[in-house]
Every structure is written in structure tokens, then in C-alpha cells.
């Protein structure tokens, strides 16, 4: 009998060290905590790297510490292929992970169809579980130039703009809400400025991107979005919620009374009506607030994931089954969601970022 991959559930070949489907390492005694080497920890990807490599033209090699082959663990050559088994290696921009604290993690992946990964994410978190976390997801628009560079720069600028926390003690709830909204608007402006900074002023197709950020502070979840990247709240017990509202053709249909399923599969469903970039229509995000009153998951993601599980209930079921399958850490759950999107076709870049709130072990909930 063959075993199944703990990350994505695909059957494993006998004696396999890695899952053929999602690339997860599977040891002799696989555990959910048993995650593979994280290239981003050893050799952080910097915006400067990307900008320099873009200036030199695509394919200019970035010098990074050697990383292990995703297939056999051998050494990867400077040409991007394994020196032992010849397996093709993902570019670091094509698949990267962040785990700023054990309760917060994200995975940003090229998917299977697109040539480049124009999604980006940037995360930060305080060490204490459930204390404070920032999840930022940007989805670069493929029809524009260097969206991969722009989206990463924008994501990091947004994360850094939120480094000091949301305003506290502003008197009335209304006053605080207004203060938070200003901070979120400033965050969007910072992300936009970073994108504009990376854009060639003469570019015929200037970089543009969607924007989603989720800020967890104790029992508060604040959300700001532009475009169609999303934030969901998936409590362990209770109904999952789509917190954000898209700026998209589909949302216009939904606002006009069409049901979500129909709207999201209609013509122009994926046309976004707002975005960041030199040609951004405006920089006013849609904001939302949710009181996190029980244990659960905050998920910020790109459409590369939600295209396959748009309905909050479907997404909640997917999360539950992955958690039940052993993906109990945020990183494993993010990997599982990305593997699921790839197994569903991987038609777009995929980003899944998660914060675990309410407790540290969702299996005890």
C-alpha cells in the first residue's frame, strides 16, 4: 500500500523522499512539522536583486548560496538545474515562503501555467501567538511589464508601513476606526509609491497590481483591499466569511443581484476595476473589520487560489480537510492550499498567507 503526501494528499511512490505532486519532503516518519528547507530563510530575496536582474535582462544569474535540489536534495548548479539528477529548479522568485512567527506563514508560487510569478507577499508577526500579524498580498497584472518586481516592492512597502501597529486609544470606536482607515490608506499609498518607483516612466505597459492586507491585532482583524485579492476568516467552529470585497467585473454583477457562482464565471468576471500602479484609478481601498471571537484562520490570498474555492463554505471545507490531514501549522496549511490550487490546474500564480488566531493548535479546538 502506498502512503499519501501529508501536504497535498496525493499518493506517494514507494521510497519517495519528496512528493511528486507538490514537492513536499516526506521522510520515513512524515510529520506535519517536517517541512523542507526554506530557500528564503537562507538567501532572502531582495527587491534590489530583482531590480538588478531585470536591468541586466531576464535570466541574469543572481548569486545566492547553493540550495538543495527539490527532487533529490543534490546541489543546484548556477544554470538552475540539479547537478546530480538534472531536475529543473524553480527560480526563487517562482516559489518562496515566509514564516515570520510560528503562527503566521505564507507561500507564493508561480503555479503551472504562467511563465513568471507576478504574485507577491510580505508578512510580519510578533512572536506571541495571536498577538499581532500583518499579511500583505499583491497580484501583479501579467499584461504589464515587470509586474513581478513591482508587486514584491509594493508588498514589502506595505508591510513596512504597518510595522508600528495600528492607532490605539483614539477615544471613541468611530474615532479609532477613522484613524485605522487613515493608516490603511497610507499603507496603500506606500505600496503604490514603491510600485511607481520600480516602473520605467516610459513603459508602454506600466506595472500594476492588486492589493490585499490583513492586520491581526489580538481579537481585531482589519482588512484593506484594492482589486480582487481577498481576505477570508475561517473559524474552526462557525461559518467562514469572505471579509473583503472585490473591485471586479464579477463584483459589479453581484452588486446588481447576480449570484456569486454565475457572476464569477461570466464574461469580464476577472476584469479588475481598481489596481495600484502609475495608472491607478484611485488609491482608496475597501476596508473591513471583523472581531475574531474564536479560534480560526485568517487567510489573505490571490485569485490563483480562490478561483478554485471562491465560496467561503467551500474554502472552509478545504481548510478543514487539510487540517484534518495533518496540515496544522500555518506553513503546512499554506503549502496544502497552494498544492490544491496547482492540482486544480495552477492556471494563475498562487499566494496563500495565513495567521492562526485564538490558540496555537487548531486540532484541539
Amino acid at each position, binding site marked *: 500500500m502506498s502512503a499519501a503526501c501529508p501536504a497535498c494528499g496525493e499518493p506517494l511512490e514507494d521510497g519517495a523522499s519528496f512528493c*511528486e505532486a507538490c514537492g513536499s519532503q516526506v521522510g520515513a516518519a512524515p510529520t506535519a512539522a517536517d517541512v523542507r528547507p526554506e530557500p528564503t530563510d537562507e538567501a532572502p530575496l531582495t527587491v534590489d536583486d530583482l531590480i538588478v536582474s531585470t536591468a541586466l535582462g531576464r535570466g541574469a544569474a543572481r548569486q545566492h548560496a547553493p540550495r538543495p535540489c527539490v527532487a533529490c536534495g543534490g546541489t543546484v548548479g548556477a*544554470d538552475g*538545474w540539479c547537478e546530480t*539528477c*538534472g*531536475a529543473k529548479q524553480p527560480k526563487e522568485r517562482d516559489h518562496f515562503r515566509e514564516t515570520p512567527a510560528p503562527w503566521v506563514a505564507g507561500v507564493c508560487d508561480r503555479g503551472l501555467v504562467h511563465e513568471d510569478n507576478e504574485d507577491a507577499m510580505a508578512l510580519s508577526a510578533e512572536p506571541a501567538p495571536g498577538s499581532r500579524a500583518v499579511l500583505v498580498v499583491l497580484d501583479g497584472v501579467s499584461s504589464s511589464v515587470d509586474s513581478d518586481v513591482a508587486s514584491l516592492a509594493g508588498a514589502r512597502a506595505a508591510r513596512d508601513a504597518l510595522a508600528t501597529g495600528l492607532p490605539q486609544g483614539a477615544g471613541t470606536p468611530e474615532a479609532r476606526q477613522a484613524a485605522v482607515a487613515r493608516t490603511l490608506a497610507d499603507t496603500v499609498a506606500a505600496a503604490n509609491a514603491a510600485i511607481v518607483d520600480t516602473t520605467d516612466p516610459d513603459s508602454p505597459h506600466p506595472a500594476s497590481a492588486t492589493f490585499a492586507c490583513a492586520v491581526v491585532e489580538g481579537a481585531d482583524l482589519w482588512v484593506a483591499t484594492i482589486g480582487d485579492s481577498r481576505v477570508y476568516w475561517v473559524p474552526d467552529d462557525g461559518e467562514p466569511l469572505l471579509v473583503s470585497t472585490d473591485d471586479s467585473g464579477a463584483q459589479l454583477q453581484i452588486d446588481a443581484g447576480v449570484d456569486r457562482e454565475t457572476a464569477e464565471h461570466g464574461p469580464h468576471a476577472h476584469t479588475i476595476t481598481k489596481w495600484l500602479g502609475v495608472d491607478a484609478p484611485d488609491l482608496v481601498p475597501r476596508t473591513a473589520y471583523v472581531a475574531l471571537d474564536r479560534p480560526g484562520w485568517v487567510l489573505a490570498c490571490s485569485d490563483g487560489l480562490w478561483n478554485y474555492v471562491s465560496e467561503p463554505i467551500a474554502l472552509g471545507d478545504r481548510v478543514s480537510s487539510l487540517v484534518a490531514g495533518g496540515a496544522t501549522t500555518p506553513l503546512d496549511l499554506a503549502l496544502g492550499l497552494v498544492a490544491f490550487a496547482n492540482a486544480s490546474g495552477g492556471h494563475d500564480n498562487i499566494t496563500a498567507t495565513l495567521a492562526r488566531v485564538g490558540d496555537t493548535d487548531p486540532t484541539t479546538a
Partner: protein
Amino acid sequence: MAEFSATVFQNEYLPDGGTDVNAIVTVSCAGAGTAGQTGAGAAGEIIIVDTSGSMGPMTMRAAKEAASAALSEIVDGTWFAVIAGSHQAMLAYPNVSSGPGMVRMDASTRAAAQQAVSNFVGSGGTAISTWLDLAGRLFASVPQVTQRHAILLTDGENRESDHMLTEAIQRATGYFQCDCRGAGTDWQVGEVRRIAQALLGTVDIIPEPEEMEQQFRAMMQASMARGVADAQLRVWTPQGAQVLFVRQVSPTVEDLTARRTEVNALTGAYPTGAWADESRDYHVAIRVAARAIGQEQLAARVQLAVDDQVVTQALVKATWSNNTDLTAGIDEQVAHYTGQTELAAAIQEGLAAKASGDDATATTKLGRAVQLAAATGNAEATTKLRKVVDVVDEREGTVQLKAAINKADEMALDTASTKTTRVKR
């Protein structure tokens, strides 16, 4: 400073279960400079002239002029020597009996060497093993010479037991390169080709004495243009893969498969000798384990290494696909050179069959050669074949052996059999 580049031509798509990856890799060199002038070590040239008794007066006079012309092409500063070969090898120049057996070229050594050559007298037999061995000893007497090249002229069959020559070739292999020429029609193409192939040189026939001077001049010019003393072709393959073959396919077909030396467990090195400003094509065939549809992997890194440094690399890939539009096509370059390799074999096998009196096999093989030469656009082979066979139907490969064949034409077909043409890119 020489610059190398490599380009790969292949159809990387394999069908489900496919294992064999074929690719043509073109390696080009620019800025090679001049032999011995690039600071990487001195160059040495040895001219070996057959002075056996079989050399007729016309041939001997032509050989003297040819050797003299070759001497005038050797760049000043190059170490050189001249060997007179018969049943034994004699150091004709420099006139020394101990110490270094080569001197550096300048106006006075050139004049003295040309004087020595003019005194050649034909006598004795032919023992080519002694010529090669003396050349090896002369090169070894000047350790600073790191680029070693010889020109060998013979007019007759080697008159010693075969293993003597075989062992001498083995001693010289990997130590010096040697271009070989046969004068007239009394020498054995197979024998001389064996020397030239092992020593990474060319072989050709000089049917008429008056062509000799020009050929010698050209050979020496070509050698002097090789500013990169030595390079290795390296082929990395993934763990578990098998190298089916590695061939040079342009400008000539040379099977290098058996000449592999190990660089590491996954990488083999194949000799390529010295390089001028030129490009050469290599055909590599690798067998890898089949992978799932959609998987992509590297089947080979094909590299050129100079002084153990990789100077250029091309990547040979494999991608498994269930799209027959992608997997069915054979790369044009691969198909072309597969045909040219078969052409060389068909010519050599056909001529060997003819020599042994098996006219039926000769007719079939040379017919196939005519067909392949036409199909791959090798005009030189077509011209040479038509001097040996009467073509009934080129497309079908139907031929008849000519009743009377000029021996020189037959030998010229044989020596040129490995020359290939390039396909337009």
C-alpha cells in the same frame, strides 16, 4: 583571449515512456590568436617526410618543396624539427645528437632547415612507428612546448607488423596531434586514417606531386592559427543516465564515444585538440529514465573546458509530452548529421567491400551513399561518388560500379568520406 560559445539544436520533447535524447551542439571559438603566442605555453611543429626508397624523383622533389614551404609558414619563435622517415626515423634538423631535439624558428634556423630538407635522398623501407616515436621524443625534449603538432607525409604502405604501429599510435595519442597526407596511390587509406583519427588530425590524398606544396602550406597555416592549445569536450549526464554516443559531426565525423575519460562520476571528457577561430558540431545521444508527462529535466550539460576551466556550456533538455505534434518531429540538425554519419560509414564500408571483391555489397553500400549524399546536400561526396559509380537512380540509390576506376579517385572518396556539410540555419 579566445571566446567560446555553444548552441544546442534538439527536439526536447519526448513521448510518454521516451528515453533517448539527441542533440547537436555547435561549439564556436573566436579570437583564438596564433599558436604559441597567447602566453599559455610554447608551440612545437615537427615535419615528418617519407624518405623511403619508394619515393620517386618527382615525388621526392615535390616533397622537398612542400616541406620547405611548410617551414616558411611556421611563425618565428615556434619550436620545430624535421624528421626523415624510412625503416628508421632520422632527425634531419636540427643537427644535434643530445639535449633538446628542437630549435626555435628564426631566419637562420629556417634557412638551415630548408637546406637540410633539400639534401633528402630516398632509400630504405617504411616503418611509421619509428617516425611517431621519434616525434614524441623530440617534443618531450623541450618541456616548455605544450602545443604539439606534426605533419606526416608518406607514399607507401607501412612495412612493419601491425601491432608496432598500433602501439606507437597509442604512445602518441593525447600527446601530439598529427595531420597525415598520402602521396600517390600506393599507400593505405585505412592505415593512415587510423593515425590521423587517433592523433586528432586530418587525412587526405595528394594524387599529383604539384599539389603537395600547396597542401603543406595550408596544413601549416591551419596549425599556426590554432591559438588555443588544447580543449576538452565535457558531457555531464544525470545520475542513472547513459551516454549512447558522442560524435564530432562537423567539419568531419569522428566518433569520440570510446575516448571518454572520467572527470567525475557524472561527467566524461572527450579530446578535441587545439582550436582556431572555427566552429565544430557535436552529436550527443543520452538515454535517461522516462519521467511523467509534463516533467522537464536536464539530460546533459555539454561543455568545453580549456585548462580544466569550463569556458562554455549548452544545456540538453528532456520534456515529456503527450502532444504528438511536439514529440514526433526530429530536429533538422539531428536528422541531417545522422544522415551524414551514415553516409561516411556507407562509403567506407562500400569501398572496403569492393576491395575485398564483394561487388554486391559494394554496390548496395555505395548506392545508399549516393542516396544519402543527395538527400543531405553533400555535393562534394556526390561528385566523388560519381567518379566511382555510375548512378542509375539517385533518389532510389541505384548504382553500378564503374568498370574502370581511377585509383586516386577511389582513395579521394575514401579520405573525404568523413567530411560533412552543414545544414542551413
